[in-house]
């Protein structure tokens, strides 16, 4: 087996061994740490001198019969998928660390840890797949345990209802997506599922999809991927799902799995149907402002931290869409970097929200206050996370957003078009995020503490470890964005090398 196959399959095999009786937490932790180490190893051995395309490729042909499209279990990494692999591996380790010990779990602790590994492993599989069939299949593999976890281990009395809503709604999204993908594959000749080959076919004027057809395909892909990534107005499932889900699941889904939707748009929709993307640009601009402004304001109105974080996570998807809508190197680089930054920072915020609830029993703003005195370490760490999410320099989020904003203006040529006006309006979202983040911080950590909150323990080792891992990732990329940007740039150089216009 090659390196990449080990990376993809290890979490799944670990899940299997847990099902067969291996110690759950230990196995989950061990395998996810190994995956992280291997991912870092892959990153260090990335060959920048090789142009474009995938590296570390491995492929096993599964169906190669005449008259059938070729399907293979094929993996590979380019700069973009490598960044998302790192994101998944980091958040997976943190999510496992944050999870309660076996004896503290109500219900089957095996199922708990096994599901986490499946969510993480499924996401990794989707990001590493170079075959469309498995890209889709791995994402589905990750979704199912997500639903289960919300229903079985979630919080609040509505969790079963929430689990069902999310299940059905995301299934509809997957279905729309599937139709779009199949239409694209058929329109491209129906001979293969290999993404690189399909992209090459789409690029060539003879085999590319007719412009009008592209619009339909892009629309379906936009809706399908959009539902998965909670694009306005398909966002309704997200906030309840995140507030009802167990903390590690919220971290993994909001931080990692959800990025599949935007990843798919960059990896598939843009190269397969570029003319469709151009035709629907204005629609995308309106929808992303829905995420940033409309949902930004809805976030301001929230009265509980978990719901606020859920909405804020949905809101920030708008900036990733803005980078994609800009469509140039700068915008796309920002979008990819923002996927990473947002993924880490939202996982960090959910992890800290979990610690707050664990210690103080509530996440309602009105019932909290003055925690900075009782729990200074928690206060400091939450402050970092909140400022990171609000786009403060020094954290990866800022570096990414700067790229997105400059990307929005890169093709302006001395006057302002729709894209630039959208960017300007979107910039107001930076003020909105600061408003809700600082309000939350003010009402949780500042001010006088309510009497019954007085003597609770601060965050200490080893509970602080997952938080620190995430924070280190966020700060090191924030100070030196080139750490990741070099990979993204390499991928995009290849991307624009082969994409006309």
């Amino acid at each position, binding site marked *: 087996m090659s390196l990449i196959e080990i990376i993809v399959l290890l979490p799944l095999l670990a899940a299997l061994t847990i099902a067969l009786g291996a110690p759950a937490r230990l196995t989950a932790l061990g395998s996810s740490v190994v995956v992280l180490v291997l991912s870092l190893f892959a990153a260090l051995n990335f060959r920048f001198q090789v142009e474009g395309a995938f590296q570390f490729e491995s492929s096993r042909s599964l169906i190669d019969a005449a008259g059938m499209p070729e399907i293979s279990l094929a993996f590979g990494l380019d700069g973009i998928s490598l960044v998302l692999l790192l994101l998944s591996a980091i958040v997976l380790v943190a999510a496992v660390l944050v999870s309660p010990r076996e004896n503290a779990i109500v219900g089957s602790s095996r199922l708990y840890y096994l599901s986490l590994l499946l969510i993480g492993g499924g996401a990794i599989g989707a990001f590493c797949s170079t075959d469309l069939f498995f890209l889709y299949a791995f994402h589905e593999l990750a979704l199912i345990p997500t639903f289960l976890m919300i229903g079985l281990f979630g919080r609040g009395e509505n969790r079963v209802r929430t689990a069902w809503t999310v299940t059905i709604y995301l299934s509809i999204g997957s279905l729309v997506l599937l139709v779009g993908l199949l239409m694209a594959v058929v329109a491209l000749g129906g001979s293969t599922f290999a993404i690189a080959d399909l992209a090459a076919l789409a690029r060539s004027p003879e085999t590319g999809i007719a412009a009008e057809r592209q619009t339909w395909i892009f629309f379906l892909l936009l809706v399908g991927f959009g539902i998965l990534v909670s694009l306005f107005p398909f966002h309704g499932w997200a906030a309840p799902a995140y507030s009802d889900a167990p903390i590690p699941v919220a971290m993994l889904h909001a931080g990692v799995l959800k990025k599949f939707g935007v990843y798919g748009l960059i990896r598939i929709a843009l190269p397969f149907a570029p003319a469709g993307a151009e035709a629907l640009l204005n629609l995308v601009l309106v929808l992303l402002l829905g995420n940033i402004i409309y949902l930004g304001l809805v976030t301001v109105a929230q009265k509980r931290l978990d719901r606020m974080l859920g909405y804020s996570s949905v809101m920030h998807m708008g900036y990733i869409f803005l980078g994609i809508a800009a469509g140039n190197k700068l915008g796309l680089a920002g979008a990819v970097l923002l996927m990473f930054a947002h993924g880490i920072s939202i996982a960090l915020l959910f992890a800290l929200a979990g610690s707050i609830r664990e210690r103080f029993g509530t996440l309602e703003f009105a019932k909290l206050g003055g925690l900075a005195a009782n729990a200074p370490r928690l206060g400091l760490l939450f402050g970092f996370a909140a400022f990171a999410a609000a786009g403060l320099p020094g954290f990866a989020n800022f570096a990414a957003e700067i790229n997105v904003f400059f990307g929005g203006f890169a093709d302006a040529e001395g006057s302002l078009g729709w894209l630039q006006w959208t960017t300007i309006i979107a910039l107001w979202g930076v003020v909105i995020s600061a408003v809700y983040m600082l309000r939350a911080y003010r009402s949780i950590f500042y001010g006088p503490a309510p009497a019954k909150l007085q003597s609770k323990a601060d965050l200490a080792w080893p509970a602080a470890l997952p938080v620190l891992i995430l924070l280190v990732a966020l700060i090191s990329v924030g100070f030196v964005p080139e750490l990741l*940007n070099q990979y993204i740039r390499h991928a995009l150089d290849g991307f624009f090398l082969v994409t006309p216009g």
Partner: protein
Amino acid sequence: MDVNTIAWILLLLPLLVAAMILLGLKRWSGLSALLSTGSALLTLVLAAMLAAGGSDAEIRSFPWIDLGQDTFQVEIGMTVDSLARGMMLVVTFVGFLVHLFSLGYMRDDRGKSRYFAGLSLFMFSMTGIVLANNFVMMFIFWELVGVSSYILIGHWYQKASAADAAKKAFLTNRIGDFGFMIGILLVWILTGSIYFDEIEAAVGGVTNMTLLNAAALCVFCGAIGKSAQVPLHVWLPDAMEGPTPVSALIHAATMVAAGVFMLARVVFLIEAADMAATVIAWIGAVTALLAALMALQQNDIKRILAYSTVSQLGYMIMAQGLGSGGTDAGMFHLYTHAFFKALLFLGAGAVIYACHHQQDIWKMGGLRRKMPITFATFAIGAAALVAVPFTSGFWSKEAILEAALREGMIGPYVLAMIVAFLTPFYMTRLLMVAFLGGTRSDDTENAEEVGPVMWVPLALLAFMALFSAYGLLAGPLLARGQADVGHLFGSFGLTATLSMLGLIAGVAAAYFLYRGKKEEPLRIRVLARKFYLDEIYIALVRIFQDGVAAFLDVVDRYVLDPAITRFPAMSAMSAGRFLRVFQVGNVQAYAFFFGVAVVVLIYFLVL
């Protein structure tokens, strides 16, 4: 050491200290404080070496974001020129004295380590602004200054008023930064660069004047926020909730001057955009006037000083709006003001410290006898502020007024003249009520002079307040160097006569009005309530932000969610009852299905 090394140490040393305190030294608060103060002293020495050396440098280092030469590249780079050297000296000099003063003022504070880490973080951020050679880097440190200010204003976070003030300061600045970022983007598409030197070279070739003016105004928005200009001035008086040394360092001398400094840095942009320049000059003048009016009726000693800061910043901004004809004068005033205003704030800090945290001037009185050193130095600071002839503040204010007249900005000139009457009025009121007469409360009755760690900084600053406009002290601190000092010290003409009349009238009016008074004789409600601007803003935020947010929340919950999420989901569900198989909740069954799937997968792999 060469310029390069000095610049890097200046920038990174405070960051290192802040990080060290945060990561490990927090427990030993005395050590943290000493380390932080020591690093401030070292940066002062380095800044002095830089100023004495007098050599320019353009330092480019590693690419921070790099998407290829033709697309977009941000380098962490620094410019050392006369403007940066002068500003650096101001920042480190005032910074060091404030560190020193804080050793006494914050001696018994529980959060002493956090406080000094905040100060060091501030020094790092401010140095970054001063040395930045491009807009993106300046914006980065611009935001970081905002954070350090948030931390320091909210130092006593358990007080609701301090917590609110910190939030208000950050958010108000964010609104300004929203414009600033748009301005940076517009400048970028007009000139193709984010580097100051390249923008300066390219700005002459810009033909789209509308967009250029818009760009300059948007960039100015950043300065409106940071330098507390109308209409975003509301955060600065509230920021006085922070410890008083912070008010002196950040909210008087350095951070709030960043807007002025930034405009001086991009003076070529203002020069090229006429319409924007006029707006800048007017906003500065209007701010100077409104803030001076609001200062007339405040009773909190720090708030009076805060409004006077806003007012003086208005002068400096107005000078920047005059373009290259006024920018030196504006920087000159920034420089003299930094010393005398830091002096006034630290003096107020000494008073507050001695009076057991009493800040109401009507409850003071008679401090002249209790605290003679503090009184003497405070009076010197006030003299410089009201521009008594031959003090430093006199020369720099004259320079601005002269420049306004020379550039033909008659409107702003007249407003500035009115301010020249109002300033002596409210400062005389402050001095008479707080320091003269008899004591009016127990807090004041028991007041004693502060120790040397606090009065030595006062004395040093008092020296600078008197003499910083002269000779060697002024030379390296002016933007365009020694040669221009001459024209700033212009002849005594119309301007000097008028402003001297204003000074005499202001002092006299306040003297006769407040002599022997035990309570406010003049009650002007609209001024005491600051033109009701805070109330108006709160109402606007309630309606346009919270109101709309609450409305949209309802829409989202009861319209969009049922229509777009629940309805499709539920109708699909009722159509697909067979999906119930998921709901068995039987773990073994689930594990079994899963196992089968994995086995199939492995089977395929081996195949």
